């Protein structure tokens, strides 16, 4: 069985400051992990994915995430927030490419 916990339902940062969106997972197998972003009234766009290669994964738009097996975490970070980063972010876990399980989402607000 797999599950995902996104520890914050809403995160608010000022433009130019760092972003940290937290994700913890549970999986019976070696997991694949993903972050997707959803802008208002849009579909989901893949930000980055971890599939058992390098534990530090770089994605689009300056985002990156680090897979920490000992902590069962896959937190998403960005050094400097931009107004266009305001969106909903979903952490996702899967095993063997099957059964994608989504977290409930974290809404990121970026203040000017």
């Amino acid at each position, binding site marked *: 069985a797999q599950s*995902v916990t996104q520890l914050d339902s809403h995160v608010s940062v000022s433009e130019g400051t760092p972003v940290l969106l937290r994700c913890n997972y549970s999986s019976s197998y070696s997991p694949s992990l993903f972050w997707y972003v959803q802008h208002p009234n849009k*579909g*989901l766009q*893949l930000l980055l994915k971890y599939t058992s290669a390098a534990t530090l994964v770089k994605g689009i738009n300056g985002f990156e995430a680090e897979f920490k097996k000992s902590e069962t975490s896959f937190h998403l970070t960005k050094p400097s927030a931009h107004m266009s980063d305001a969106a909903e972010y*979903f952490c996702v876990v899967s095993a063997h*490419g099957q059964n*994608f399980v*989504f*977290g409930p989402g974290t809404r990121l607000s970026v203040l000017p």
Partner: protein
Amino acid sequence: DAGITQSPRHKVTETGTPVTLRCHQTENHRYMYWYRQDPGHGLRLIHYSYGVKDTDKGEVSDGYSVSRSKTEDFLLTLESATSSQTSVYFCAIGSVSADTQYFGPGTRLTVL
């Protein structure tokens, strides 16, 4: 959106009527998925397909059926729509390895 279209994009219907949503892909991917998105739940899998005429149930399949007669099309049918099926529905596709999913733009369905 990786060559995925959904139709209709918006639909309002009445309780008890049948509704069919269509997902069309131009990527020739083997795997196709239907999700629903509700506040606080992230995305939940309704049904998925791993090939033409091969489908299986997801987490929230009650009240839904699917069909896949061609690689490029995956239909979701609400046999008798209920107000609890008011949601945003997303289609996704995955490659042979199915290690990543790509999402369509979504269909907003309102059942009155």
